[in-house]
């Protein structure tokens, strides 16, 4: 386990939805503790790219290596691979028939097979970390959007993943709740979690990201650190996009 471990590597990742060529050959690496932000106009394929990395979408061709393992290999135990990657969704996707703590305990108990007591302890710790220990027994419908998303983050963290994926985590939130979620994400970045974040939150990206991938029309148009991208975008497409956003 060293600082320069490559956690995720893609080689010529291609994805077709019927005739639509959504990903046209993505080549990239993500190293340990790196925070990579993926930006781009809608339809650029950024969400599809993220979802291919844990095979939530099946890539049409290309290679994806997670911790050195080719996850496109036949008969691979993809469920095991997914335990190492935590995913946070735009629409939270909390399980409505379970309360917050049960949401968090479910996967560790049934996949990692830890005991109820251990799962509860870990769950309460995580709820504490995201600032919601008093909402342990609340059901998702009783929580605000920001609270639900924080529980979702805790649920993903309960599996103690090596990498965290965020698919537009704040896009479905009312403005006043975005901050609490970004705070949690900032803390995780500071603690050295490897993160890939698809987002429009420029403030967060500028602050916390180590590297930015700018995607458009299914390819990575430009990449670099926040300084390079925001102050000195090289490609016309990047400049065009940024001029509209900033």
């Amino acid at each position, binding site marked *: 386990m060293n600082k320069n471990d490559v956690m995720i590597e893609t080689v010529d990742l291609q994805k077709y939805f019927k005739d639509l060529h959504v990903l046209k050959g993505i080549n990239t690496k993500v190293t340990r503790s790196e925070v990579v932000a993926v930006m781009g106009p809608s339809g650029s394929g950024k969400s599809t790219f993220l979802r291919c990395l844990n095979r939530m979408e099946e890539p049409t061709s290309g290679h994806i290596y997670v911790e050195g393992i080719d996850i496109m290999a036949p008969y691979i135990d993809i469920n095991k691979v997914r335990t190492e990657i935590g*995913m946070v*969704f735009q629409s939270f996707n*909390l399980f409505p028939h379970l309360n917050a703590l049960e949401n968090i305990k479910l996967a560790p108990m*049934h*996949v990692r097979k830890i005991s109820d007591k251990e799962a509860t302890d870990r769950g309460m710790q995580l709820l504490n970390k995201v600032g919601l220990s008093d909402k342990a027994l609340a059901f998702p419908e009783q929580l605000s959007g920001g609270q639900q998303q924080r529980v979702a983050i805790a649920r*993903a963290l309960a599996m103690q993943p090596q990498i965290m994926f965020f698919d537009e985590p704040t896009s479905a939130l009312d403005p006043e709740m975005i901050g609490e979620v970004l705070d949690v994400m900032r803390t995780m970045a500071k603690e050295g979690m490897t993160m890939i974040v698809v987002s429009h939150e420029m403030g967060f990206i500028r602050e916390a990201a180590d590297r930015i991938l700018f995607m458009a029309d299914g390819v990575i148009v430009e990449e670099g650190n926040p300084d390079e991208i925001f102050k000195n975008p090289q490609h016309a497409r990047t400049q065009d996009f940024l001029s509209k956003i900033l």
Partner: protein
Amino acid sequence: MTSKNEIRDDQTHRFVRTHPMWFKVIRKPAFVGATFLVLVLYAFLLPAREAADPTVLYVSISFFLLLILAWSGNVLSDRNQSEAAKMIVALLLIGVLGWLFYNYSGAQWDKLADFFFNWEKLSGGWKVLFRGLGVTLLLALISAVGTITIGLAVAILRQFKSGTLNIFLKIYVDIFRSVPMIVVMVVLFFAMPYAGISLGSIVTTIVALSIGYGAYAAESFRAGIESVHSGQIEAARSLGLSRWQSIRMIVLPQAIPVVIPPLTGNLVAMLKETAVASVVAAPELLKRARELYTSRTNPTPLIAAAIIYLIVLVPLVRIVNMLEKRVKLR
């Protein structure tokens, strides 16, 4: 620029929309009273049943019926009418309808007790009827297991997203939602023996009901499973849960509350349909009732059977209704 439908409200000077003139006229007490007297007169003038030519009789009664309904409808729909008056009109309406039926249906009312509620003649028959009821309920129970199994199996098979499989399943569901159940039972019982399959009447009934209502149950299960947001499965799989674990712990608990109202509806309809099994000689309630009717030339067993069906089914149908309403409110 006031049309004849508008008047200026003197106090607020705003336009108040009113009803057309004739609408106001028919509501006036004078009109209502006058038409009432006309109807009473009409009633006295109605020919006696035996006396008149049948066509004249039917026409005059139909016309009378129409007028009564229109008159009572007029009073009952009047928002300004008192509740007490409406109550009286309602009772009058029911009374007149009853009187019409009593007088003009040709029924010999003295024979009612003798033939329809002849409980003494029925004495030994009660046991037979209840045994028939037992068979009915048993058939329904076993068929219910079959129905739910088939329905669930079809719904789960659909989840495998195989194109060919889905076509076969669709064909199955389409066929058995379209063919009447009685045809299925008759074909299984009367035609299949020619192909070497000779099932007894009970097995035929169970197979027919299970396969037939399994198709409806499959649709109910499908509605339930589709009601679960796809994001739920995504979240479950992203945590590392297997396909089976996701279905068992995340999809099914959320789908089942949605499945229960329509599924209960399917099963109650299936229970009703057991009566059709009498056509293929299954010894259930209706068949027993018919046997008693034939052997004793008395319709009381049929009436008794009908009443038993009502006692069992009316509460069930109401429960199904309640369940379906509750889901709609969510």
